[in-house]
């Protein structure tokens, strides 16, 4: 379990846009996991199991804090559009571009692209059909691509 913690922290950090409460999410995930450790089947994939718990904890947290403005902004392009510089997007802009994805697309993009989970594992972690994973992945990557390639142009248009 300890060996998976760095991966959980990385995913949480990216999922929450680099915010400091990522470790709180990981903490709650581990507490939940230890509470349910008797449900873990030895020999099964503890990594996928922990990601599933983290996902559920995150959903709960989002629901709990739905009234908080910092969560409302996610996916709202106008509210948080990046002030990108010309040329390549800086690191901060990647955070911002990710923040502009709807949560469910961001999850899939990160679980696949950052954590390297198999599509079927992502489907299990998120408890959705494989086809849903693929369509979220497709939309998420398309959107991220256009944000990263056209981010600067967009800003310029807005200024005019």
């Amino acid at each position, binding site marked *: 379990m300890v060996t998976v913690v760095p991966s959980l922290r990385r995913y949480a950090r990216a999922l929450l846009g680099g915010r400091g409460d990522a470790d709180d999410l990981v903490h709650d995930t581990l507490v939940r996991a230890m509470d349910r450790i008797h449900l873990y089947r030895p020999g099964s994939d503890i990594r996928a199991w922990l990601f599933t718990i983290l996902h559920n904890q995150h959903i709960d947290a989002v629901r709990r804090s739905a009234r908080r403005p910092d969560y409302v902004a996610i996916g709202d392009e106008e509210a948080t559009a990046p002030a990108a510089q010309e040329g390549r997007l800086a690191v901060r802009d990647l955070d911002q571009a990710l923040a502009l994805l709807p949560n469910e697309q961001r999850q899939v993009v990160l679980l696949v692209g950052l954590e390297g989970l198999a599509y079927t594992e992502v489907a299990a972690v998120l408890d959705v059909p494989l086809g849903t994973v*693929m369509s979220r992945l497709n939309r998420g990557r398309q959107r991220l691509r256009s944000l990263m390639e056209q981010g600067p142009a967009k800003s310029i248009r807005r200024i005019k």
Partner: protein
Amino acid sequence: MKTPDSERDADLHAAVDGQIDQAEQTRIDAWLADNPEDAATVHAYRLQNARLHDRYDDVLNETLPPHLLGVIESPSVYARRGWTGRLTGIRRLAASLAFLIAGGAGGWMLHGQMVPSASPVATAAATGFADKAIGAHKVFVAEVRHPVEVPASDEPHLVAWLSKRLGTTLRAPDMNDVGFSLVGGRLLADLNLPVAQFMYQDDNGRRLTLYVRSTDETGRGDAIVPQDAAELTSSKVKTAFHFVKHGGVSAFYWIDNAFSYALVAPLDRPGLLAIAIKVYTELDN
């Protein structure tokens, strides 16, 4: 209800993520050669993956906050953040078993990027393999007079003997380029299987071991490629690289078809990765 478009998109993603077999890869590569727009899409998505790693992989090297480890290791710390449950005796036992099963403290694995592969899962068995390799490393590098059974001066015999015992054609990779010269090797046992351990040493007296064992069924199923080695493995999607570090030594380990390898040394990750890539490349030729 798949449309041709969604099938094509799924193919492109699978190519990006390496979640396809060789035949499909060949078919998609041929398609991409004739369809520059799709090729650009694949390139853009791979770049996304690489940027994600570039941005977030540093987290993997951070020291774990004690309160997170405390949740796993110590029930008293564990209750601290407002958690109201209780550990029963059985749960506590189960918790410590899971902890043991999942491998030692502080270990970690790298995941890959440009071409991550099908089953990115560090199984308990694979972690156990690394632990064995690290254990054997620590036992034998401490030996002053008998670090190896057969010294490097008798390399042809050493290699022939270990090859015979492992039932394959082994080689002691040449690491002189990276400052390590062969000390020799020995035969060990792990899971009732013969293991070859080659030992190397640099000018500072640091010792490095390469631990080679045939891959048992339970140890299979990892396929993780570190970002730095992406170009190295782009043609071999199925190879997995994992990194663990504990007790002052680092290990990269990987499974390549029928054999599992672990490279162990008191080096940091980048230093050991450079050597691991060299060893992997040499063994693969």
